[in-house]
């Protein structure tokens, strides 16, 4: 078995500000890696570098693709990278509006990845989209409604469906439950948990919420000031934090 993602010496600066420095790790198939840290820790920058949305200043991201074999994400042509983003990868944005077409129906949103790779049977596309709506617990009679008529939680679930319809192998998530009500959050986390398990997804999840990390991730990387200060098994990092910053983070969780 090979790692699905190999990252070495990943560094990205914006002018003089170093957003992330020397990040290195391997992600194995079926693993969910959490990246936690506070605002400004560099976690979103890191995620965007991994997903090919930003070009790092140094380092490499190697991905074991099904379409092209092992590739260097940033050495790939834009055409191929865009193709991977629509097929083997998913990206769940914090704000669902950034990951949806708000002006077309839910069915069209979910069906897009299928149509992008040549699906040409309206009835079948619609049927698949309808199934996915069911899987993300949205009523199927909302299939023709636009996401503008959806609640925030529904939009996020729709975004998830839109990403997963192409059976991606690797999903990037940027605070997928940020800004949602707690009960809505719980529902989406539950959904993500079961989907990741049943579909054997690998995922990189950025969050500042340690509870989300505990629930969804197998491994955790703690970032501070652009560096990874601690990493390991999620329950170990949270229950037996070694680094001062991690200890501070864990101690700062408000008890319920």
């Amino acid at each position, binding site marked *: 078995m090979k790692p699905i993602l190999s990252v070495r010496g990943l560094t990205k600066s914006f002018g003089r500000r170093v957003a992330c420095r020397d990040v290195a790790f391997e992600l194995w198939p079926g693993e969910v890696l959490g990246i936690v840290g506070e605002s400004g820790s560099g976690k979103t920058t890191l995620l965007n570098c991994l997903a090919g949305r930003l070009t790092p200043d140094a380092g490499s991201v190697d991905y074991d693709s099904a379409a092209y074999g092992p590739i260097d994400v940033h050495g790939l042509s*834009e*055409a191929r990278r*865009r193709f991977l983003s*629509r097929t083997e990868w998913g990206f769940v944005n914090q704000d669902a509006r950034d990951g949806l*077409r708000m002006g*077309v*129906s839910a*069915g*069209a949103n979910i*069906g*897009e*990845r299928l*149509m*992008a*790779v040549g699906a*040409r*049977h*309206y*009835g079948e*596309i*619609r049927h698949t989209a309808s199934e996915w709506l069911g899987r993300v617990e949205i009523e199927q009679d909302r*299939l*023709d409604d636009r996401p503008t008529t959806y609640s925030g939680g529904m939009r996020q679930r729709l975004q998830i469906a839109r990403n997963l319809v192409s059976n991606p192998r690797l999903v990037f998530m940027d605070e997928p439950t940020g800004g949602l009500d707690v009960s809505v959050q719980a529902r989406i986390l539950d959904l993500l948990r079961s989907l990741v398990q049943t579909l054997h997804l690998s995922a990189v999840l950025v969050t500042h919420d340690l509870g989300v990390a505990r629930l969804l991730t197998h491994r955790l990387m703690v970032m501070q000031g652009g560096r990874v200060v601690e990493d390991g098994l999620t329950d170990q990092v949270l229950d037996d934090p070694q680094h001062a910053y991690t200890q501070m983070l864990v101690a700062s969780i408000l008890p319920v």
Partner: protein
Amino acid sequence: MPDSNSQAGAYNYAYLDEQTKRMIRRAILKAVAVPGYQVPFGGREMPLPYGWGTGGIQVTAAIIGRDDTLKVIDQGADDTTNAVSIRHFFAKVADVATTTSTEQATIIQTRHRVPETPLREGQIIVFQVPIPEPLRMLEPRETETRTLHALAEYGVMQVSLYESIARHGRIAKTYNYPVMVNGRYIMSPSPIPKFDNPKLDRSPALQLYGAGREKRIYAVPPYTPVKSLDFDDHPFEVERWDECCALCGSRESFLDEVIVDDAGQRMFVCSDTDWCERRR
């Protein structure tokens, strides 16, 4: 070369200067070499505003010669104000014979219709195009649409057709219906009715498209496959009428609906005036 004997007097032949004609011809050659690809060109100021056919006129001006016979139609008719104006313009500046007969024309400049009479090899049809970018309504950014064309990422177009079916039960687009040219580029065939789309497929004539405001030229060389986009279970269909043409009885042509009195009486007549006249 300036011809002081021409009626145009101070104008260069066919109005445009030679360098401009050369630039446009180069754009046309490029367009013909890559069917359906929108070639930017340095559009000039023409003696009529944008939206009145300046793109088509520049294309015609670049290719027309004294041996040509020019036909100009607007919504199928030779006798509308704009068609007449443009025809007279070229008669004056290009010293060229003009006609209303599709068969006799060597160059046909058209707004929003393809003639009913099948075109033949050696003819050139020049389309006036308002918005050359078929994805414009779906993706407003020019940088993004250029990338989509370059990478042949046309999912968004299929999405819009899906959406049309979801909303209306069928693909509701009836004019400017998007087509796939030579299996590679999606193209806007200009606002012709979808009824005319099949005429573009493997036509023996050369199709040139000019958009003056947007400054783009594109082309479909003769015998090139042009396929209207659809779904397997919602195939492309042309319009049909229950009526026939009230003047010539045609059941095969595109019919305009004309209100004839204040009581709302209507009749259907061929939009292609030349076709209609020939049949009577």
